[in-house]
């Protein structure tokens, strides 16, 4: 190249080398210009539907009026779509929705969704920690193990659900294996508790790998010298685990738990294909998302109210995790020491895992 340094009219030195203040003006405009397309697209595909769902949720569904038996066209509904769900009010007062009808299912669906979330995420944390600890050792065939653990993650959930439907069939392999230990065959997708555990087992199978990989990324940040020091000081294995390992992987672990918790709170495909939301009295595995989809066939506006409630629940849980749970998802640098880089979910961990062989 023959051009000289002088011809470079606007050397774009990184901001850290610049004086703070007005010199960033050009970069600021460029930055906003570059993120604008993403903001616009996300506004169109998420914010607009969200706002229109809120507006729709204050409209009456057209249909037969329960009180008069006449067909009504809709119109403003006030809060009735919300009281419909929260109070199981089908038009004639609190708890007036007949048992088993969609309107009476909000609290059972919320309970079962929370149950799935707590059990599934707890099992995943325990198994994920265990898997990550095993995989954190030096061993041959590391690539094979990591590839094997990615298989459940990569299979589409719809296929996972069908696969476990087959495994849990009455004549299927799960009942056959239970037969070996003397347990009589279960109606996995028919009875309430077996159906619920079928959903949990399939979900834990599919998503533990994700948890294990994120935890592994955290584990690889801890230097072996820390453990050696602990050993010399005579720490027991349990002490080492609770005093060193857990605190040091807290951030990646909490991020993983946050994402998994939100995933299970909105779970749909797996119970929908595996049990159709049924089992037991017909709605033993009806999660909040399944309830929304069932309601959409009955009326959009009360479905919109329900989906808005689901959105609020999820936003609230995310808020709790980020505010109080230590799930530092956007690692915002402390004020006054703003770096040039945005650190996301432990980037050294990314390096560590990427180069982990």
């Amino acid at each position, binding site marked *: 190249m023959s051009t000289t340094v002088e011809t470079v009219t606007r050397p774009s030195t990184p901001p850290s080398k610049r004086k703070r203040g007005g010199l960033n003006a050009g970069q600021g405009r460029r930055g906003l210009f570059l993120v604008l397309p993403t903001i616009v697209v996300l506004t169109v595909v998420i914010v607009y539907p969200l706002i229109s769902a809120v507006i729709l949720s204050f409209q009456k569904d057209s249909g037969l009026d329960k009180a008069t038996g006449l067909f009504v066209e809709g119109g403003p509904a006030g809060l009735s779509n919300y009281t419909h769900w929260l109070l199981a009010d089908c038009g004639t007062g609190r708890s007036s929705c007949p048992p088993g009808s969609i309107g009476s299912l909000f609290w059972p669906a919320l309970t079962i969704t929370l149950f799935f979330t707590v059990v599934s995420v707890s099992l995943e944390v325990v198994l994920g920690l265990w898997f990550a600890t095993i995989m954190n050792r030096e061993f041959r065939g590391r690539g094979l193990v990591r590839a094997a653990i990615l298989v459940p993650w990569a299979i589409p959930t719809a296929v996972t659900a069908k696969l476990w439907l087959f495994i849990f069939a009455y004549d299927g392999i799960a009942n056959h294996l239970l037969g070996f230990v003397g347990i009589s065959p279960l109606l996995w997708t028919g009875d309430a508790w077996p159906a619920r555990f079928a959903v949990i087992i399939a979900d834990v199978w599919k998503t533990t790998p994700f948890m294990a990989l994120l935890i592994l990324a955290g584990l690889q940040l801890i230097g072996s010298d820390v453990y050696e020091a602990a050993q010399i000081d005579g720490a027991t294995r349990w002490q080492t685990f609770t005093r060193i390992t857990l605190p040091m992987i807290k951030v990646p672990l909490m991020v993983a738990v946050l994402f998994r918790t939100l995933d299970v709170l909105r779970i749909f495909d797996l119970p929908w294909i595996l049990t159709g939301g049924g089992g037991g009295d017909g709605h033993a595995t009806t999660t909040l998302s399944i309830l929304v989809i069932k309601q959409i066939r009955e009326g959009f506006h009360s*479905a919109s109210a329900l*989906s808005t409630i689901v959105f609020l629940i999820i936003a609230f849980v995310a808020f709790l995790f980020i505010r109080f749970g230590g799930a530092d998802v956007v690692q915002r640098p402390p004020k006054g020491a703003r770096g040039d880089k945005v650190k996301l979910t432990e980037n050294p961990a990314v390096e560590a895992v990427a180069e982990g062989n």
Partner: protein
Amino acid sequence: MTATTGTAPGTTTSDVAHAHHVKSERWKNTRAYAGLALIVIWGLAPFYWMIVTAFRDVGYTFDTTPWPTHVTLDNFKTAFSTDRGNHFAQALGNSVIIGVVTTVLAMLVGVFAAYALSRLHFRGKYLVLGFILGASMFPGVALVSPLFQLFSSLGWLTGANYQALIIPDISFALPLTVYTLTAFFSEMPWELEESARMDGCTQGQAFRKIMLPLAAPGLFTTAILAFISAWNEFLLASQFATSTTQPVTVAIANFAGAQPHQEPYTTVMAAGTIVTVPLIIMVLFFQRAIVSGLTAGGVKG
């Protein structure tokens, strides 16, 4: 972890203690390998069962031999047959169209945002990041009723309107793309670009010749993650797909068998194998990149 040598310095050198040490190390290794075997079985056993069943004659669906007996390719033929109203081949094509277009669009839009977020300093950066992060936590089910009404008023819920599936898929793929790419970009040695420019490259040249080759693995990994997320999507597709635009996930969930209300297990396992095996090969091939992408984004695909 330190290598496990026979004698650890600092411990007693008596033969008994030594033998004990070796024994406990061996026991530790055995346990570790048992653990590794368990992880491999965990990941592969159900998947293996799907493939074995895909090759089983339908009369032996519930055979429990651990290897396929009465091997046949009929299930694959049945999966592609349109006799029972299944359009599996078409659904495969639809999934490819939807996956590729979603990935390309999400990458095109997302790469600029990720560049700005990782490299530039501007006001409102953390607000934008928070917004994108919030978008990745958004429950898809909240999109269904408003988009259903919008799409039906636009007439998109009949015929070959792929946009009715691609546009909502962007809501999952784009936050994932921006988030993962931002993590990749912030790890890149941007100083190289500076020095190339010092040596006389134009900004365009410096980007094309120096930064793009370095960014390629990150871009590629992100594209794979976005494609997998679009390929695996079910909820919105199950509501917005028409019989012409139905992707494989919906097709597999609705597979009809010879008799109504009877699950055609072997056919579904064959279809599942066809849908999954290309993904698995891709995952095995790019395993290291995918793991780093997953941990970078922290977002499930």
